[in-house]
């Protein structure tokens, strides 16, 4: 097997007595969607934070594209191609949708210390950004400030921003949260095509989406992965049913 795009080995993180991440190992292979599920408080977000670099693990290894990234900060990891969406939308609220995506485009070009040329007249920024908005179906709302977008539109914008980074892997933290059934269905279809571009580590509560999309599923309970496998294996795993779906053994 080729080396995985993202590989996490024996990651540990405690907050006081709470072991939020208790020896987690998983990997993300190219072309796949790997879903991470688990009950509330299982430590999913803590894990994503450590992978993206906003939290420092106590111990363990994180390798991305064959490189140890544990010592890099969030911005450096993003520059390597690790794109992330947030559980609660984290956009530049005053900027329009277009300018949010343009920021990612300029970041990808590595040109933030240019002081003179006005960005709005810079087609090397506006055109790729507009193309990304079109891909997620948000072109009509390009000039609306992020703060005035609907909840679902903000999730779409988050994805467009991540796309604009031209990433080598996506970390998507509950992209379906708060979306209506129609929006969730559309996004599911969209993510399905996205895996060809870069593999996705998907944290999601919407089980319909997970079962429709995931090539593999890992189940996180109390900071530990209790099972990993394809959708059918996970559905039929007795331990998962007991620990997660709350069924008696």
């Amino acid at each position: 097997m080729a080396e995985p795009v993202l590989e996490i080995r024996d990651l540990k993180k405690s907050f006081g007595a709470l072991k939020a991440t208790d020896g987690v190992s998983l990997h993300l292979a190219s072309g796949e969607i790997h879903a991470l599920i688990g009950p509330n408080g299982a430590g999913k977000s803590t894990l994503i934070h450590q992978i993206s670099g906003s939290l420092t693990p106590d111990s363990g290894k994180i390798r991305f594209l064959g490189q140890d990234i544990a010592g890099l900060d969030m911005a450096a990891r993003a520059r390597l191609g690790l794109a992330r969406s947030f559980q609660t939308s984290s956009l530049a609220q005053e900027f329009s949708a277009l300018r949010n995506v343009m920021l990612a485009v300029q970041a990808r070009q590595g040109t933030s210390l240019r002081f003179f040329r006005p960005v709005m007249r810079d087609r090397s920024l506006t055109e790729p950004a507009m193309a990304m908005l079109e891909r997620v179906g948000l072109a009509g709302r390009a000039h609306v400030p992020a703060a005035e977008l609907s909840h679902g539109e903000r999730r779409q914008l988050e994805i467009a921003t991540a796309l604009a980074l031209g990433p080598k892997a996506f970390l998507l933290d509950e992209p379906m949260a708060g979306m209506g059934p129609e929006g969730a269905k559309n996004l599911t279809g969209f993510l399905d095509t996205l895996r060809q571009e870069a593999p996705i580590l998907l944290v999601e509560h919407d089980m319909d989406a997970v079962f429709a999309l995931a090539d593999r599923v890992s189940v996180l309970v109390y900071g530990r992965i209790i099972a990993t496998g394809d959708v059918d294996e996970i559905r039929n795993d007795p331990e998962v049913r007991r620990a997660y779906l709350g069924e008696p053994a």
Partner: protein
Amino acid sequence: MRKVVTREAIANGSLALLLLAVPFAAIAMDEPFYVTLATRIAILALAAVGLNIALGLGGLVSFGHAAFFGLGGYAAGILATHAFNAEPLLLGIPATTSMPVIWLVALVVCGLVALPIGAVSLRTSGVYFIMITLAFAQMIYYFAISWPAYGGQDGLSIYVRNSFPGVNTALPLPLFLICYGLLLLGLVLFWTLRNSRFGAALQAARQNPTRLAAVGIAPFNIRLTAFTVSAMITGLAGALFADLNRFTSPSMLSWHMSGELIVLIILGGRGRLFGPVAGAMLFVLFEFALGGITERWQLFLGLILLGVVLFARGGLMGFIAGRERHG
């Protein structure tokens, strides 16, 4: 893109013309004092334009910009004093009374001081940043007071105003025009920065630093650059201020000065291109009008400021030009 002349553009143009017209009217009416008042407005506005880069665009509430305002002032004062006494500076470098050279020195000195202060202060954020910038400014203030070579507590007089090639700077109107010209340059720089890639990153760092890091731009570098550029412009204004008053003193470095610079921005409208100009006009007007009525004008300034903060958060520009728009 849009070629519509906005309400803000009209307001900005009117303010710029108004400030330019005042000294000419004053000269026509033989009231040179008002020229000095307008010059004071232009210089304070320039200082606040500098601070507005850090505070308005970057959301960096520097409570220590008086340090740079004062350093600029001391650059002008020290160079002029050495030149006046025909004493070379350190290492035998000759001093100068040429304004452009003095401005360059003020810019460089403030940049060099702002870099380490910014590098330490920007490791923190929020209230810590406010207090640390305040503390660093205070450190420079106490240094100026305890260092007797340049006047200590008493400050430093500039006996003959520094010179500008081809201009008689002793006359009020030419001096005003120099300051006004630099103010316009400062405004152009602010406008250019705000619309640039750097400005986009800086404003994103204010709105949401996590977002900036998530796309791969480290907020620290952007902020440090902004802080340094901001300090340099405020320092340039300080050099002009010293030349206007022909005097520089520790009071230019004091924390009241830092507070006043923030006040100028807030009175005018935070992050707005002409906010500092509107704010400086209001401030000098208050100072002059209230100061004419009562010695206790600062009491009323305090009440007005409190009112603006509690009830009129857009400042004067918010009032006359409406809400701000981002492209």
